[in-house]
């Protein structure tokens, strides 16, 4: 069964005035198709306002599609009775780490989700310990979240989701407010969860360098999926990306420019190491 199966989903935000009349409609998603298999690592790219966050909220059943259908692990998110189960299946990590940490102690925050699931006390503690170890923050279990660094806070938020044992985790620009070190920590945590635990990861990001680890990339523009494919396929089309106001990783850009200048390097180079290897082969 597909982890995520979205067919032609659309969504528009409505602005409502005091009398309850709709004054304005903003179409945030227009016919998005998305199929994700269990265990995949997906990156979603797109300029500001392209509808990435709207898509993420759909996956967590925080909003339901106005048109089209969305199945999460076989459950229709439009059905009210499925909503809680969908939220158990896909966890969601948001951009601002401060605004998603509820408790004043790290371990209590991680336990918040399992408490909501109505688990037994012992099970909650097991899960809290397990997930704090998974994000490498077990030593900070008694700390106050306010005293942690941005990257650590974001990992607390991830642990809070992991403790609910979702099959899929959606991360909406989790690294946008972090410094390079914090970004590396968070991305490393995501990859480890994907590889070790087999959790499906949907990573929404503005950083091309974070997308190269994905199995597949979706590129969004004005509420539609314009491109979809492996990182190599996507990043060997820099002109199309540029039309969507997206960049390519620096190594890819350099390779592309070298190729244009007549140096025979292959398409779709993603990392500096690959580029070095290609250039050495050429010599």
């Amino acid at each position, binding site marked *: 069964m597909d982890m995520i199966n979205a067919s032609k989903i659309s969504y528009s935000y409505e602005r409502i005035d005091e009398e309850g009349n709709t004054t304005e409609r903003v179409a945030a998603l227009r016919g998005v198709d998305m199929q994700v298999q269990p265990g995949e690592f997906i990156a979603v790219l797109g300029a500001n306002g392209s509808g990435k966050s709207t898509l993420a909220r759909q996956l*967590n059943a925080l909003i339901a599609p106005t048109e089209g259908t969305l199945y999460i692990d076989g459950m229709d998110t439009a059905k009210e009775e499925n909503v809680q189960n969908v*939220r158990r299946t896909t*966890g*969601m990590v*948001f951009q601002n780490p401060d605004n998603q940490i509820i408790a*004043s102690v790290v371990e209590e925050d991680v336990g918040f*989700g399992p408490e*909501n699931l109505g688990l037994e006390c012992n099970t909650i*503690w097991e899960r809290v310990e397990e997930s704090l170890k998974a994000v490498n923050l077990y030593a900070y279990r008694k700390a106050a979240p306010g005293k942690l660094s941005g990257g650590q806070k974001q990992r607390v938020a991830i642990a809070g989701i992991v403790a609910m044992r979702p099959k899929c985790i959606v991360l909406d620009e989790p690294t946008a407010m972090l410094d390079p070190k914090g970004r590396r920590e968070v991305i490393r945590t995501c990859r480890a969860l994907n590889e070790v635990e087999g959790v499906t990861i949907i990573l929404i990001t503005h950083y091309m360098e974070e997308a190269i680890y994905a199995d597949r990339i979706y590129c969004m523009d004005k509420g539609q999926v314009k491109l979809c494919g492996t990182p190599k396929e996507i990043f060997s089309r820099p002109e199309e990306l540029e039309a969507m106001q997206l960049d390519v990783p620096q190594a890819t850009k350099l390779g592309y420019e070298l190729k244009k200048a007549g140096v025979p390097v292959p398409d779709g180079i993603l990392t500096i190491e690959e580029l070095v290897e290609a250039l050495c082969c050429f010599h």
Partner: protein
Amino acid sequence: MLREITIGQYYPSNSILHRLDARVKIIGALLFIVCLFVFHNPAGYALSTLFLISMITVSKVPVFYIFRGIKPLVYLLLLTVIFNLFLVPGKYIVSWWIFHISAEGVRMAVVMALRLIYLIFGTSLLTFTTTPNNMTDALESLLKPLQAVKVPVHEIAMMMSIALRFIPILLEETDKIMKAQTARGADFESGNLIKKIKSLIPVLVPLFVSAFRRANDLALAMEARCYTGGKGRTKMKPLQYQRRDYLAFLFFCVYLGMMILTKIADVKIPIRL
């Protein structure tokens, strides 16, 4: 400057008072306060003093920390003393111009000041030995019977704990906004009271906007983590009475019993001031 404000000041230690169930401590503090106002005879005050001194000793909280609790209320205290001193009628012992001090007034002033100070000591001892989280948990548990009359007890407790989590964040943000406005030429220091209050508007508006945005984000994050209110929710750290908590209850009963005894004894041996 705003960082200095601490809410629910907690003094970390590992005393027996710190380890007691917060519910026991709340009940104890209430009992102490009620006794303070119900049993007003010298023996009762002596007993209260003894109780307080022994509790402070057991708590291992430094005495000057406890005395510091009076500081914000020192004007209220002075006012109470002055009013009682000059306005209580009786046999005047000092008279000068329009001011008269009666023996009754002196007695009342001393008693009222003592009561207020003991009240502050008792409550601050409670907050010094109880973490804010334990306090909200305990209040939720103690107020649970009110759910029968449709008081949203869980929601109130959740609001309190979220407030405790966000107060430092919002204070920091206020600090930041004030600095940003100062850099743009805003002046928060000079002028009269009205001018000062007016100068706070450019701080409050962005603060409220940001607070609402945070509230919205937090609500989404809580919903995404399957929060649907108190129903069907379990506790990670359930409150459970230990042996020491029952012993504390026993101790409180003895205290109450002795208090009642002082009252009975007092009727037989009237003590003149």
